[in-house]
């Protein structure tokens, strides 16, 4: 295996969902939830997926985790054909790729004690047995900043931040190489969210773990990720090093997301760019570039042809015929 091979790589992922009319109704069409997504995560790297609801970022996360089967496309993980693995080989490999979800309330079992939940993956993956389990659980709880006494509590007895720490301990139990985090702090108060984000950063660094960090909040993703992929309507419309994407956005949609994120973080600033309209129907998306009906710089060509994701120098790519033309507006200071 060459060292240049990424830890995880996906090529041309597609996920279609059938939409039916009524319970037994005929097919009313197909939703292209993920529409030709390619991405790669290097060892130890954090890739941020950002976009609004329905943009396909969470479905992409579920495909990466193999919680769902892609309609088309290939995935390689850690030197193996991840999309083709099945049965015992798949189960065994799952220890290397773990997840943390938005709502620890629903991802933890309400009737099981914290210690049992953290121990479960250890038992299932036959990593630790007998007395060693309790020690390992205590060590994992300590890793996420919880006292050993937490093992005897039920999820309902913990705060939201503590529950998310338990979910992280559980994800770390098998020593994964890749952690997929889907909106890990969006259910938490901002004063607690920082604690969890710092914890995730420390753990990644200490363990050299790679991560896919999925969130709607560009300000958070920009700080967490090495690279960012911006999703719109099932596709990646911009991708590149986090600092570049934020400082020199190429796609008009990224410019609008930045305007919304900048506006919400500065006081007394004018509202920058406000996009008209809403994300389009996923059953019958617009022709050409899916963003063209809302795009402030769209031209006739945009309604006809679909722009490919084109890479520019510095590993910064955008799917726009007029990439870089729309500049961020200054909002209460110099442009970001």
């Amino acid at each position, binding site marked *: 295996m060459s060292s240049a091979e990424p830890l995880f790589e996906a090529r041309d992922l597609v996920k279609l969902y059938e939409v039916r009319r009524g319970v037994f109704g005929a097919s009313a069409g197909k939703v292209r939830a993920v529409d030709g997504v390619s991405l790669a995560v290097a060892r130890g790297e954090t890739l941020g997926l950002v976009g*609004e*609801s329905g943009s396909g970022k969470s479905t992409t996360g579920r495909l990466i985790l193999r919680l769902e089967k892609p309609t088309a496309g290939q995935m390689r993980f850690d030197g193996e054909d991840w999309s083709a693995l099945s049965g015992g080989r798949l189960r065994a490999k799952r220890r290397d790729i773990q997840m943390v979800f938005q709502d620890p309330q629903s991802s933890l079992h309400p009737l099981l004690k914290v210690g049992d939940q953290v121990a479960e993956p250890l038992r299932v993956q036959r990593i630790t047995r007998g007395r060693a389990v309790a020690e390992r659980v205590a060590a994992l709880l300590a890793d996420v900043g919880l006292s050993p006494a937490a093992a005897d509590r039920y999820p309902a007895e913990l*705060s939201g*931040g*503590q529950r998310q720490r338990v979910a992280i301990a559980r994800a770390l139990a098998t020593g994964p190489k890749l952690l997929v985090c889907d909106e890990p702090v969006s259910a938490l*108060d*901002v*004063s*607690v*969210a*920082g*604690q969890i*984000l*710092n914890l995730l*950063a420390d753990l990644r660094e200490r363990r050299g773990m790679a991560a896919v960090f999925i969130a*709607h*909040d*560009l*300000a*958070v993703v*920009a*700080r*967490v990720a*090495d690279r960012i992929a911006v999703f719109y309507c099932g596709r990646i419309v911009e991708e590149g090093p*986090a*600092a570049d994407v*934020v*400082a020199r956005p190429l796609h008009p949609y990224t410019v*609008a*997301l*930045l*305007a*919304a*994120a*900048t*506006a*919400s*973080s*500065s*006081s*007394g*600033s004018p*509202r920058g760019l*406000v*996009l*008209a309209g*809403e*994300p389009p129907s996923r059953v019958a998306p617009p022709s050409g570039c899916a963003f063209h009906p809302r795009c402030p710089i769209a031209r006739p060509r945009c309604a006809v042809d679909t722009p490919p994701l084109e890479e520019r120098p510095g590993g910064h790519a955008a799917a726009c015929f007029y990439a870089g033309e729309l500049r961020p507006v200054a909002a209460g*200071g*110099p*442009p*970001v």
Partner: protein
Amino acid sequence: MTAPLLSVTDLAVEFARGGRWFPAVDRVSFEVERGEALAVAGESGCGKSLLARALIGLPPDSARVSGQVAWEGREINGLPDEDWERLRGGRIGMLFQEPGAALDPVRTVGDQIGEAIRLHARVSPAEARRRAIERLREVSLPDPESAVDEYPHRLSGGQKQRVGLAVALAADPAVLIADEPTTALDSTIAAQVLDLLARLRRSRGLTLVLISHDLGLVARESDRALVLYAGRIVEEGSTSEIFRAPRHPYTRGLLACQPRLTAGSGGIRHGRFAAIAGMVPDLFERPDGGCAFAPRCPDRFEPCDRSQPPLFADGGIGVRCFLYDGRTADRGRRAS
């Protein structure tokens, strides 16, 4: 001299446990003048939504409410239900977090706006329908003539929030109470709704009471702000002054926690996130006697555990912290 639009004195909302009453909203006093935008800011569990419900006379059944709330000089305690009905909706409009929370799923948009109009004005059904279309146009719902016959489930989240606003404004209220009006919306849609709210405030001279956890929103959309912690106002005053120089250690911490996109090369990457140690205390486990924020406070000193600080005045800002008590301040570590 006319009475303020809204005047609140020593308002408390309490819940019982084990024969004791615990205040979720604790002796809150403030006034709202006509035309201004007042923000009530705080994290979950600070009592901001309970405060909003008490203001419109809809506290939870299990709660005990005390203190005075007067709308345009009229004390609302003991107001007959029918007078309340007329006040609520007639003079006060409500907009909720969940788009469509106030909408009836089995009735058309036009029916619901029309009903709200006819509750407060004697008009024919045809006239109510005409006015409903007018309201929908005012909130920029696309194609209001056909949208008036739609059912709520046919609308997107952003459209439902616009319809919710049309219902709230149906009877031309003097004040709009908006409880987390954009929290459930995607950022580009939230920007549209905020734009619309700002426009309506100007065109209608509407008074706004904005309840929000989002300090960015508070900074941009309000003239004055109250910061709540554990049911009490910990800081109050002009929004621009609070954001220019936050006084209370909690406000300072909360502002530092806001995820922001900051300028600078590479400065955005892998920075530590600010956080406040610990968490908001549970209603039934708040510290007895001392300042409720003391256990999390970086500036805690002797007086903080002995008694609850009153509101001290500091340059036009009210701040509930002993750092601003002339007699003890020299002993505390005050931010400069």
